[in-house]
């Protein structure tokens, strides 16, 4: 069983897939809803305090916006803990999304530059791509299982 960081971290589908293969998904416990009644798309369930952006200084310097640093205080430790990762690029919002593009760039960079197996996929645009997409994730998770 491996700890697998997923991007977008809010993707319940991806989180569920990882769990089904017996791995531990490292993700945000946030669901993207069809109707948005919160300040952001991926509003955190817990009240974040001004301390979080300060903790985020470990991942991004002070000239980086506070929202990026606040997010990194949550996702940075997950990336450090991860033994594998799946990145889905340009996903549909309903699949899972994260509100800040700058954080997304930093998260993907940190994941890609870490020494762990990474599956980097584009979100499918049609049924055929969809099948290949699911198959690629299955194969990656299976390989992870076998390698352990």
């Amino acid at each position, binding site marked *: 069983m491996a700890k697998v960081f997923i991007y977008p971290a809010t993707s319940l589908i991806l989180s569920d897939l990882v769990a089904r293969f017996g791995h531990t998904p490292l993700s945000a416990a946030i669901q*993207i809803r*069809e*109707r*948005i*009644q*919160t*300040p*952001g*798309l*991926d*509003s*955190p369930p817990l*009240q*974040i*305090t*001004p*301390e*979080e*952006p*300060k903790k985020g200084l470990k991942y991004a310097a002070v*000239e*980086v*916006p*506070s*929202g*990026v*640093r*606040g*997010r990194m205080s949550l996702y940075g430790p997950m990336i450090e803990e991860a033994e594998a990762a799946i990145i889905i690029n340009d996903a549909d*919002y*309903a699949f899972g*999304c*994260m*509100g*800040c*593009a*700058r954080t*997304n760039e930093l998260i993907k960079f940190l994941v890609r530059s870490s020494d762990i197996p990474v599956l980097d996929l584009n979100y499918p645009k049609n049924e055929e791509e969809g099948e290949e997409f699911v198959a690629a994730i299955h194969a990656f998770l299976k390989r992870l299982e076998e390698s352990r």
Partner: protein
Amino acid sequence: MTKVRVAQLSCGPEYSGVQKEIDEAAAAVDAEIFYPDINLADIRRGSNEFGLDVRSADLKLAIARGKALVEGRVEADAVFIATCFRCAEAAIVRNELRRYIHENSRLPVVSYSFTERTTAGTLLTRMEALTTIARRRALLAREVQEGTTLGVDSGSSTTKAVVMIDNEIAGTGWLPTTAVMKSAQDVIARALDEAGVKMADVEAIGTTGYGRFLVGKEIKADLIQEELTVNSKGAVYLADTQHGPSTVIDIGGMDNKAISVQDGIPGSFTMGGICAGASGRFLEMTAKRLGVDITELGPLAMKGTSGNVPMNSYCIVFGTQSLVNALAAGSTPEDVAAAACHSVAEQVFEQQLQEVDIKEPVIMVGGTSLIQGLVRAMGDLLQSTVVVPHHSQYIGAVGSALLASGFIKGE
């Protein structure tokens, strides 16, 4: 009193840990923050129609919410736009969204860029102004002062009082602020004395400025109102530009205000207050260093050329150091005074005036508007003639006295 509903269009306040501060600032002025309810399809459509192709999903959400407000699909009394400080993408959205809402709706709008250090106290005056515009449109529409009224502006540097009688300024009082109440009482006594009336003759009282709550409570003011709306009103009243657009600039002792005004009511505004180098304090320090009274700094600067003095920093400490170095290198006091004025004007131009739409006439008010060198520097930067109305240093007190007269007949 019904709560004013302020729509929040934002990116990053929760992860910056400041959402609680925004909520607290709104609650303090009896307003409530809400997040316009839209669905995922609206985000894609709204963002595409707006035409600004940004990457951050929360900025797309803010744009879609802004469109929903303008198109009347969501109702609000005011709009608060907030994004992270130092995010270029967010700065573009913040500015364009503010302009779009300002031009296409009657909703008062304020934009703000926050850090994790932003507190409810910082946001309070902005939030208060938003709710004042939403709640007191009828009062803000008042164009004529009636009866005998008193206005007090308890500012961070100076305290001012004005007695107005039947649309004329009858008495004024001005003192540096020391103990807030003592300063207020002294300027009130001076204004009453000059007007030849007693406190018992005053039919209504208004207070504004940093000490408005304390002074207002003590002297039983009918109107206690923040300086953004009061100064706007006072500015267009004294400049006789109550109808149509105008821009009000007030460089204060502790903060700066730039306000886009339409028919005497602020439409969008910005308030800066972090850097002393962009405030009247810098000019006070320069005057002190040059060994002249602050009232002499303006005429001195008018005789100088700012470009002759290299300024290496906008900072009040290092900027002053540049001035001292220039004096030591043989620069004239006139050039140094002009450089200080240019430095303050340039900072306000770069940091505040980019966040409001500059529409003529541009009216400068507050004590610093009496420093001609500063007014000239601002005019040069804006490439516009800046209007300084009579009694411009009493702007808050005049605005308060004018608006307070609405309480005589219970408006």
